[in-house]
């Protein structure tokens, strides 16, 4: 299989990116600054992320589109306002998650942003549900995120009036006579924006953001940023065998959909009523040792009670951080647990998420 490149590939190279293969794409893991510096630049100033490998799916409105989509997404789309976005899941029959996604109601179509590794499978599921095999991911568009406290001012210098957007809301804007769509969102725990724009203008657009003071940031820092913010990475923290309830993401199921029918809803209802056996929690090792994915979690009596799904060193909290699934009986904050790293048992404590407090601009109480 040919490895794919985004429209910004040459720009990444020019900025001395180290590349890794990610979901079939050659993507920058870091630039010359390195992961920790890039992480700090995003937290303190502003960082640009090329997320064009993610799938952008647009679905034009027709009679029953909303009802059909509600059969596979646990989100109240009927009351979604124009230009409003919601975090949602493409649900599996067993209550598991095929993908996590952001859905936005645009004027005449839905926009769904899908994970790169899942997008082809997602597309087929949605095609089948909507009975429309002509539906396709739009590969003529790039997706760029700008994140961090100075991003609002920097982006405002390139696209006027963008700072009026509220969190999880979007709007059409214009850049070099092209229509672009910007939402106030992101996946770093910082205030920021995601910009969907044609491939042919993305280099010029990102060049402008850099000249106004933002910096390209790689996937390495994107991972430490999202983990500090307590956000899930699909394929690691959530997958086809974890339900939104187990993943502690129940908040993303709309309240008025709780008793409604959607794929996997029976399992979800049962879990909400009867409780779950495992739950996703934050974990803080007491030392600097990093507990990476698959690290086993033990209780004080040496019983295995769970597994780490993501772990790294969090530069902003200056500590080792992890999240994982743990038996419900041990999921309470401050429960002492032990992590098996290289044969040693490292003491750790269950903690609340996020590790790093966010500074989102409030617009909607419920994201």
């Amino acid at each position, binding site marked *: 299989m040919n490895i794919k490149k985004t429209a910004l590939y040459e720009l990444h190279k020019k900025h001395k990116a180290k590349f890794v293969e990610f979901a079939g794409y050659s993507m920058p*893991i*870091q630039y010359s600054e*390195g*992961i*920790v*510096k890039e992480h700090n630049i995003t937290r303190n100033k502003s960082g640009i992320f090329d997320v064009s490998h993610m799938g952008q799916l647009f679905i034009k409105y027709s009679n029953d589109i909303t009802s059909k989509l509600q059969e596979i997404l646990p989100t109240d789309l009927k009351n979604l306002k124009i230009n409003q976005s919601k975090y949602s899941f493409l649900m599996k029959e067993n209550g598991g998650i095929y993908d996590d996604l952001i859905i936005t109601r645009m004027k005449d179509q839905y926009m769904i942003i899908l994970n790169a590794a899942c997008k082809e499978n997602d597309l087929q599921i949605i095609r089948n549900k909507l009975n429309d095999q002509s539906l396709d991911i739009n590969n003529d568009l790039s997706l760029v995120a700008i994140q961090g406290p100075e991003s609002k001012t920097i982006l405002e210098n390139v696209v006027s009036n963008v700072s009026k957007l509220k969190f999880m809301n979007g709007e059409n804007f214009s850049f070099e006579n092209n229509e672009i769509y910007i939402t106030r969102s992101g996946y770093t725990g910082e205030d920021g924006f995601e910009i969907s724009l044609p491939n042919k203008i993305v280099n010029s657009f990102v060049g402008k953001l850099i000249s106004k003071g933002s910096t390209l940031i790689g996937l*390495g820092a994107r*991972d*430490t940023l999202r983990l500090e913010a307590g956000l899930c990475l699909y394929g690691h923290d959530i997958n086809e065998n974890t339900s939104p309830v187990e993943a502690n993401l129940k908040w993303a199921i709309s309240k008025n959909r709780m008793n409604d029918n959607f794929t996997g809803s029976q399992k979800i209802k049962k879990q909400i009523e009867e409780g779950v056996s495992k739950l996703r929690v934050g974990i803080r090792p007491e030392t*600097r*040792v*990093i507990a*990476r994915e698959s690290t086993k979690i033990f209780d004080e009596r040496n019983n295995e009670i769970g597994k780490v799904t993501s772990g*790294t*060193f969090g*530069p902003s909290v200056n500590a*080792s951080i992890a999240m994982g699934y743990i038996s419900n009986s041990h999921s309470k904050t401050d429960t002492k647990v032990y992590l098996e790293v*290289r044969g040693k048992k490292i003491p750790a404590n269950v903690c609340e998420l996020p590790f790093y407090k966010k500074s989102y601009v409030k617009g909607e109480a419920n994201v």
Partner: protein
Amino acid sequence: MSNTKFSKEHEWITLDGEVGTIGITKHATEMLGDIVFAELPEKGSNVEKDGTAGVVESTKAASDVYTPVSGEVVEINQSIVDDPSKINADPEGGAWFFKLKLKDKSELDTLMNKEEYDKFAKETSA
């Protein structure tokens, strides 16, 4: 650093009398990226040539640190455990890992000199 030798696992060792100071090379730190965790052998422990004698972790991955020669650990550099970013900043100087009382000096003959190591590093990373 003319009496400094290098291993294929990207460690360096400088001999001063009976005691060798060991660390990881600048090239190794560049490959690893930002180091955020370091674990060292225990003082007084004995380590065997090419055996594991510590761990470094970057934001990306964990890597074992091997000892290029056998001996007894006589000193460890606690400052790199407390602040692992020192390893990226000064890997072949202040950020040494541990000191060994060598068991068999002839083991040094199996290691590379600076010129040989630079060539090896260039070839293996290409």
